């Protein structure tokens, strides 16, 4: 089956892509750039960098902009999916939804209207098990936004590894944050995965801090480097 993936550049959509690509041909990435930084549907941080991930993956990208009003976002998403159907003859959509009924049910409705398949391969996955799978399968994932106590700007740019996972598990126990960040506590950006043909090196970035527990890593410049090249060169 030919599929497209709703792609935000973070760990969820990249891992969903990894699962889906084992069984199906992924014809394109679909990315929605929302001008509303508080969009319920779409990740906004790092969205300008998806073209680099598309190149690293060697999968074409369909990008759509939306002003980010609640239901307008869905009309724009539907247009983007229609374009993927016309351009790549896709028969279904893959999403990285884990627990959000808000997101998944809206995408299910669009797929039903367009008479295509909808796959959510991470649906109801245990959050900690999910993070362990990401680490085990050699994804390189960095935190690009934090929005919950006790997270702070020192977490920005940190790579997901067992040490960070232990910290997130402790925060889950003590402060009830969702360790995988599906509640918006953290947003991530994938710089390397088993499907990437190149990895992404960050050349220039800066931190924008709204408050002590709300901040973003703004990535201004990246370049693709060979997988065996050190990211520190």
């Amino acid at each position: 089956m030919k599929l497209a993936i709703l792609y935000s550049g973070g760990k969820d959509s990249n891992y969903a892509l990894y699962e889906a690509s084992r069984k199906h041909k992924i014809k394109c990435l679909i990315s929605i750039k929302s001008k509303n930084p508080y969009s319920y549907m779409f990740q906004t941080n790092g969205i300008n960098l998806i073209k680099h991930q598309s190149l690293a993956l060697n999968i074409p990208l369909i990008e759509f902009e939306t002003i980010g009003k609640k239901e307008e976002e869905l009309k724009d998403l539907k247009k983007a999916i229609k374009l993927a159907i016309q351009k790549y003859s896709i028969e279904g959509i893959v999403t990285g939804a884990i627990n959000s009924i808000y997101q998944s049910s809206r995408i299910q409705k669009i797929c039903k209207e367009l008479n295509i398949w909808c796959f959510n391969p991470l649906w109801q996955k245990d959050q900690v098990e999910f993070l362990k799978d990401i680490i085990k399968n050699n994804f390189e994932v960095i935190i690009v936004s934090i929005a919950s106590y006790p997270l702070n700007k020192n977490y920005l740019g940190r790579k997901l590894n067992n040490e960070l996972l232990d910290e997130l598990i402790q925060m889950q126990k003590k402060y009830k944050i969702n360790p995988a960040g599906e509640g918006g506590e953290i947003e991530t950006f994938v710089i390397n995965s088993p499907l990437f043909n190149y990895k992404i090196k960050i050349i220039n970035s800066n931190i924008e801090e709204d408050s002590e527990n709300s901040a973003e890593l703004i990535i201004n410049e990246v370049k693709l480097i060979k997988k065996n090249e050190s990211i520190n060169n």
Partner: protein
Amino acid sequence: MKVLIINLCYKKESLSSNEFVKPIENIVKKTKKYDIIHYLDIKKKKLKQYNKIILCGNALKDFEYLNHLEIFNFIKTFKGDVLGICAGAHIIGLVYNSKIKEGKEIGLINIKIIKEDIILNNINFDQTYALHSKYIEKINKFEILAQSQNYNQIFKHKNKNIYAILFHPEVRNKELIINFLKL
């Protein structure tokens, strides 16, 4: 005795298995021994080793199971308990000569309990997730335990522990599956 989880996706390795079978497996594996089988692999003689069967849901666009309904006639003679979720509920209805009709619910719905039952004990129905494009109006020999605004949601056989549930309890009402496993 073990629980048999039946995968109703159009093929065994479907990507939908992650979405509709794995969440059920994650609930069952905490307390019970179990096997997972694709419906096309059901062999009647092997069902004796199970005392419970769960028929999972599947994708909105997946109706391949309707072409293989004869496989599921064992439900009528199976000695143990049966829980059918969404497509699994459709199958129970069809095996008992009911009809399924076009009618969709996608997202959160409100559930009203019509009749108390042991599998509904201690369940918070504040959030209930539905994902279906067909529904069952009534099933002969079954009573209705719960309804949403639009459709009957939970059916129970009058004399056996056979339950047909239109919504997806594995998403926001996991206790319902846990109660079924305790029967």
